[in-house]
């Protein structure tokens, strides 16, 4: 049987600098993830970490990586042509089929736009879904905006709110946290609308509350958790919350379940 811990070498075919501390790596890979899944990425000798997939297609995956620690720092020093080691995909995906034909609001903050990007792309590629989709993004400041060009393209098709935490010179758009803008999102019928909320724990806690104030039930909200993981396959125990293993039962959770997971 195949050893699930052994990663595959994947060549970096392109690197796009998104911000000062984030880049998107395109890797040659046969891995076919679903929206919201993650892979374990490593550099031998440095370490391994779970990274969500921000894009995929025939023969490639994209990973948008923020320089946050030792491993990600080393990965960001990599050049095109070099190799990263990858295994996966892992975890529960967003239920895109459930969202089909329904209104969907995607709210995400900072580098958490990466795990929802493929879901958004697939919605916008389908004319049926476009009119039922709206997007809400929060970033720290104008310099931190991820996928800037792509978000501009999305604005052509669907309602998009981009907000930055505090006022900044050169910024004429919206300010404040995402929570402040949930009240303005058009929600025709909360009973048949879904929200995907992904970001840091505090952001998810308060943003989901805002959506619930708008009439969405926890059953219609999906979140995605981020945890330390050493295996990705339900063994190492680092990501366990209560009786749930984020790597196998998550990272995507329906909010009525997520609400009951207490760290």
């Amino acid at each position, binding site marked *: *049987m195949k*050893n*699930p*811990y*052994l*990663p595959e*070498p994947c060549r970096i075919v392109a690197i796009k600098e998104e911000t000062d501390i984030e880049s998107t790596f395109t890797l040659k890979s046969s891995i076919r993830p679903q929206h919201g899944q993650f892979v374990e990425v*490593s550099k*031998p*000798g*440095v*370490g*391994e*970490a779970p990274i969500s997939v921000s894009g995929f297609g025939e023969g490639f995956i994209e990973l948008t990586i*923020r320089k*946050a*620690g*030792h*491993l*990600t720092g080393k990965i960001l020093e990599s050049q095109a042509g070099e190799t990263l*080691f990858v295994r996966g995909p*892992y975890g529960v995906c967003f239920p895109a089929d459930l969202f089909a034909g329904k209104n969907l609001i995607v709210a995400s903050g900072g580098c958490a736009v990466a795990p929802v990007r493929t879901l958004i792309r697939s919605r916008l590629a389908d004319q049926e879904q476009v009119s039922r989709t709206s997007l809400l993004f929060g970033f720290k400041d104008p310099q931190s905006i991820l996928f800037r060009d792509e978000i501009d393209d999305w604005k052509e098709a669907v309602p998009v709110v981009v907000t930055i935490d505090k006022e900044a010179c050169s910024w004429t758009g919206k300010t404040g946290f995402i929570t402040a803008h949930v009240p303005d999102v058009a929600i025709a019928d909360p009973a048949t609308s879904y929200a995907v909320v992904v970001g*840091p*724990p505090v952001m998810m806690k308060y943003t989901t509350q805002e959506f619930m104030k708008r009439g969405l039930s926890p059953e219609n909200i999906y979140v995605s958790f*981020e*945890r*330390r993981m*050493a*295996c990705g*396959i*339900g*063994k*190492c*125990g*680092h990501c*366990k919350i*209560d*009786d749930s*293993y984020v*790597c*196998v039962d998550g990272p995507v959770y329906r909010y009525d379940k997520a609400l*009951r997971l*207490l*760290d």
Partner: protein
Amino acid sequence: MNRLLKNKECNSLLGGLSADYRFFAPVRRAGRGRLSDTDLITYDQISSVEEIVWDEKTLRSAKEIMFPITETLMRFDQKTISQPSVVDNRGIVIFCRSCDIHAVSRLDKIFLDNGTSPDPYYERLREKIHFVLMECADPFKSCFCVSMKTNIPEKFIAAVREVDGGLKVLSQRRTLVDKLSTIGSECEFELHYPKQNGTEVFPPQTLDMPSELYDHEMWDEYSGRCIACGRCNTSCPTCSCFSVHDVMYDKDSGQAGERRRVWAGCHIDGFTDMAGGMEFRKSSGARMRFKTFHKIYDYRKRFGENMCVGCGRCDDICPEYISFSNCINKVSEQPGTQGESL
């Protein structure tokens, strides 16, 4: 079949089987105890039954035989990644008590059943392992196996009782019966199991722990006492968490190295740390709650039985004298913990 074997006969049986099997049992390592002038009682390989320690509990369980403290997952150089092979292909026979046999079934759930696929490193050691039950009619003071329903084991190839100068052996295993029939003499041997412990616990029964218990003030005391040393985790026969580290053989050349897993523990600082500085369960009290619920609630919710097997090692080893058995009972005294039983 019941046989009485003199030590010499036992040893020649072990010797005869040593080409195909390794034998592990609780042994004494003189002067290596955690206090000065004390011995360490630990599981290790034996070649004679006189080495087996019957009257003291081992500091740690037998889990490191199938889940080594440090284990190489893969080796790598500039071009390739390879999986190390097993060094010793012999079968493994472990002499241990009922609680430790039950504990391995808890590890099996995590390493073989949980998640998307079995853990190949655990599986390849586990499939070699057989248990010989050491009769435990008179358990140690801190044990609570009867409360945890682990006093009677399920799977073992033979059971043994220490008698003066030898062992009484009981086995139904055909291959073993054939071997034993030519050694020693017939004897009476009715196996006794623990019926009562010095420590009694009442694990919660609910499948839906009241949410008030998650930040209940009962955990605050542990924040003040626990020093996050993780001894309870390492001594626990069912703690299965690990971290993974890459190590280069020669840091300067950076040519070759290996990826290792190492035991980790939920009480120890850094267990939940993520790149960027986020961490969960900062206080020792929150960690105590996490571990306690895992052992007597979460695991049961997921797998249908309690994880804790009541060996009492965590109570024996804690340098701050924190009693896990007492903690279980404190949880069970809270309203709403006795709900629906499995």
